[in-house]
Each structure stands twice: as structure tokens, then as C-alpha cells.
């Protein structure tokens, strides 16, 4: 196969339908950026949930030595813990619970604020300063009053945090943005598919003489379709590249250097999540252009 021919056809094809190709690239760029945003926001929600627990969780802080709560008479005892677990296990609103030790809590704080603040002779906090806790998962986020009132008065309980009050607005915003991005992307992806289809129709029409002769003299189906597939691949890769750039701007300027510095209590997405999102759109982009191309070239270039 003569690659020179394929590449010259590719160059000609891209130039001949320049405006259509630009339209495809721009539509792909915007839709892939939005899909990438959706992927990033999804990871952001997962990351926050891993740190803070899901919306269904209630955290019960247990008394520690020198607790802020005056009702705590020193560190929680084993007997008190057993009593608390009894109450939790017997409550019908509870789906499950887990225990979090001081050390685990300390590790989380270190990860969130950066481990360097806790090293050396003058650490910001030690594991002893943090309380043990139970993380209670609810069956129904609306049914929580029974368990909170049952637990709050128990001996050894310092405080109770209903995570939903803190997290609901954050999760709500992330979720709304995610679905907004993905919903808009769905329309644009559909538009991109139609544009790709039209571009191929135009290109096949513009090259109908060549294609007719190629079929007649016995060029293989792949050979005839190759310039179309290459065009599809090139437009997809340009769209993916632009979208990756826009997402990089979002992650590294919008988040790392902006909200990430202002709102440090939330773990923000960064390079690994960015690479995930780019990987996803790098597969999706070519699929979006190659799939209709394969289908339509079979239709228009049938031997």
C-alpha cells in the first residue's frame, strides 16, 4: 500500500472540507471537555466521599482525654464503647457502622493538610489529640432523628456530627455540575456524530469519481476507506488535544491554584484524576468519529 497516496489524499480531504472539519473539531472539543469535566467532578465527589464519608453517614466522636465537652469525664472506656455499639446495632435506622481509631483519624488529617506539618519536633497535632469515632451509615438519609437522639446522651460520646449538613451543599453543587456537564455533553456528542456523518457524505460525494474508479480497478475496501478513517482520526485527535488543554486549565489553574488553596479542608482532584479524565476522552474522541465513519463508509463505498 502506498502511504504517500493515503497521506496526500488525507491532506486534500482535510483542505477540501475545511469548514466541516473545523465544525467537527470544535464540537468535539466542547463535548469532550464537558465529558472530561463530568469525569473529573465524579472523581471529585468520590474523593470527598472517601475523606468525609458519604451523605448517609453520621459521625459519633468519642470522648478523649481533656475533651472540649465538659460532660466527658476523661477518655472513653471499653465498657462505654460496648454500650454505644449496643445502641447503634439495635437501632432500626442503622445500615451499618465502622470504628475509626485515633491513628486512622491522624493519618487522614496528615493527608489532608500535608504530612510535612506533622514531622519534626514541633508537630501541628499528634494522634493523641484526635478522638476515636464511630461512622454510622443510615438506611435512609431522611431517617436519622432516632439514632442521633439515642446516641447523643450516652456516656463517652463527646459530639455527634451529621455530615449531611456539611456535605449536602458541596455534594449538591458537585453533582449538579457533573450532570449539567454530562447532559450538555450528550447533546453535543449527538451533534458531533451528525456532523461527522455529514462530513463523510460530502467527502464521499466530492471523491465519487475517484471512488468509482478505485472500485472498478479492484482497490480493496480498506484502501478506499482509509483516507476517510485517517480524516476521522486526525479531527478526533485535534479535538481531544484541545479538550485536554481546557481540562488542564480547569484542574491546574481553576482548582489547584484557586479553590484548592482557599478550601483546604476538601481533598481536591489533581494530576492523577486529570490523567484519568484525559485517558477517557482520548478513547471516546476517536470512537465518536471512527464509528460513524466505519458505518457510513460501508454504506457509501460498498463494493
Amino acid at each position, binding site marked *: 500500500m502506498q502511504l504517500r497516496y493515503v497521506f496526500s489524499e488525507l491532506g486534500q480531504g482535510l483542505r477540501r472540507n475545511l469548514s466541516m472539519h473545523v465544525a467537527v473539531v470544535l464540537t468535539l472539543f466542547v463535548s469532550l471537555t464537558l465529558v472530561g469535566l463530568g469525569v473529573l467532578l465524579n472523581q471529585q465527589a468520590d474523593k470527598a466521599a472517601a475523606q468525609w464519608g458519604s451523605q448517609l453517614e453520621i459521625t459519633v466522636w468519642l470522648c478523649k482525654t481533656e475533651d472540649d465537652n465538659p460532660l466527658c469525664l476523661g477518655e472513653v472506656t471499653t465498657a462505654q464503647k460496648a454500650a454505644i455499639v449496643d445502641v447503634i446495632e439495635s437501632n432500626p435506622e442503622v445500615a451499618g457502622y465502622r470504628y475509626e481509631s485515633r491513628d486512622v483519624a491522624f493519618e487522614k488529617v496528615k493527608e489532608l493538610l500535608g504530612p510535612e506539618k506533622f514531622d519534626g519536633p514541633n508537630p501541628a497535632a499528634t494522634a493523641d489529640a484526635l478522638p476515636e469515632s464511630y461512622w454510622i451509615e443510615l438506611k435512609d438519609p431522611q431517617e436519622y432523628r432516632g439514632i442521633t437522639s439515642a446516641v447523643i446522651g450516652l456516656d463517652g460520646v463527646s459530639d455527634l456530627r451529621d455530615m449531611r449538613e456539611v456535605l449536602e451543599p458541596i455534594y449538591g453543587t458537585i453533582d449538579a455540575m457533573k450532570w449539567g456537564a454530562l447532559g450538555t455533553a450528550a447533546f453535543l456528542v449527538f451533534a458531533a456524530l451528525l456532523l461527522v456523518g455529514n462530513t463523510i457524505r460530502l467527502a464521499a460525494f466530492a471523491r465519487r469519481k475517484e471512488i468509482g474508479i478505485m472500485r472498478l480497478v*479492484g482497490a480493496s475496501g480498506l484502501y478506499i476507506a482509509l483516507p476517510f478513517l485517517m480524516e476521522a482520526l486526525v479531527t478526533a485527535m485535534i479535538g481531544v488535544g484541545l479538550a485536554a488543554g481546557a481540562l488542564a486549565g480547569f484542574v491546574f489553574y481553576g482548582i489547584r491554584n484557586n479553590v484548592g488553596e482557599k478550601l483546604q479542608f476538601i481533598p481536591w482532584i489533581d494530576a492523577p484524576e486529570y490523567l484519568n479524565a484525559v485517558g477517557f476522552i482520548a478513547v471516546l474522541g476517536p470512537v465518536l468519529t471512527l464509528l460513524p465513519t466505519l458505518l457510513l463508509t460501508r454504506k457509501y463505498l460498498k463494493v
Partner: protein
Amino acid sequence: MIRFEKVTKTYPGQDHSALADVSVELDKGEFAFLVGSSGSGKSTFLRLVLREARPTGGRVYVAGKEINRLASWKVPRLRRQIGTVFQDFRLLPNKTVHENVAFALQVIGKSKTHIRQTVPETLDLVGLANKADRMPDELSGGEQQRVAIARAFVNRPMILIADEPTGNLDPQTSIDIMKLMERINSTGTTVLMATHDAGIVDAMGKRVIELVDGQLVRDQAEGGYGLPAI
């Protein structure tokens, strides 16, 4: 080389068959005219040979292959053994004479060295060696048809199919084209030519296959365009 066995072709949505129960055979190196009025089934006959259509009944063998059993991906290989020439030349207007002929070899993956050698040889054969760098619109109709024949023949096909190749040409030019077709036939290539041109058929005195309304009505070894003289 080409064999039709009781071939019937009915296009979808039509009750009338374009070809009905046609059996005919062309040997290697033969020259035959396919005659008949418009709508008699000539084009369908040629389309079946090229496997642009498949028979609804009977069998078509081309170059030893039964074409209704041939997988689609093998069709290009079959077509490389068949050269095709049309009434309207079908040259690429943005390519030179040389490029038009070379195109047929490029797209089936022939090497540059092969192309550099074969294309000038073929242009020489059709008498256009000195016009290799012209564009098609700078050529006369007869010359354009020569380019089309060169393109059809450049891969040295076993079969040359010509659909009204002289339909757009004046009588003198037509005779020149027919001489060229005979020359190609003399290299061993089977030639099947559909035509309306009674003068040419009568002058050549070759085999004549006549179709009327999709039926084979005549297959005469050294025939003329009209009915055979009694």
C-alpha cells in the same frame, strides 16, 4: 473465461426480468459484441460480469470463479483481472494522462518502479506516449477514450469489458478505437463489447451475442449487427 449458465436477473420491485435464462460462454482470447436495443439487458449482463450485481437465478463464472459465491472481500481481486471502459471515459479531470493511468495501479498497491515502467509502455501501446503530461480536457474524445483504455489495460487484465466505447465518437475515431481493441485482444485478453454501432459490428465480423428483452436471441460466430443474411 466468462460463462453464464441459465442466468436470470430480476431487480427488486420489478416483475419483468432484466435477463431471463441466458446461457453463453466466452473462451480465453475471444472477441465478442453484445448487441441489443436499450433495455435489452446488455448493461445487466456487464454488471453481472463485474459482480456489481448478483444473479437471481443460475450461475455466472468469471475467470474461473463463481461470482454469486464469491465473498465481498474477494471482489476487488476479481476486478483486478477485468479492465473496464465506458462511453463517458470517466477520467479524473485533475490528473494528467500519466497520472490517470498510474492511478489504477497505485490504488491496488503496485510499486513505484512497476508503475514507472508499465504506464509509459501502455501509453505507447495506445499511441499517446507523447501526451503523458496533458490534462484530459486538452485531449480529443478519441484520445480520452485511449487514455481510458490504457487505464483499463495497464494491469494486463484477462478480460476487457467495454460498454459503448464508441458511443461518443465520430466514425473515423471509432474505427481507430476498434483497431486498438483488436490489438488488445491479440495479446490474449478476452474482449466483450456492448454496442449500438451497427457499422462497427458489421465491419469487424466477430462473434455477436444479441439480447432482446432479456433473452438471448442470437449467438453467431461471425455475425453482423442485424439479422444474419440468408
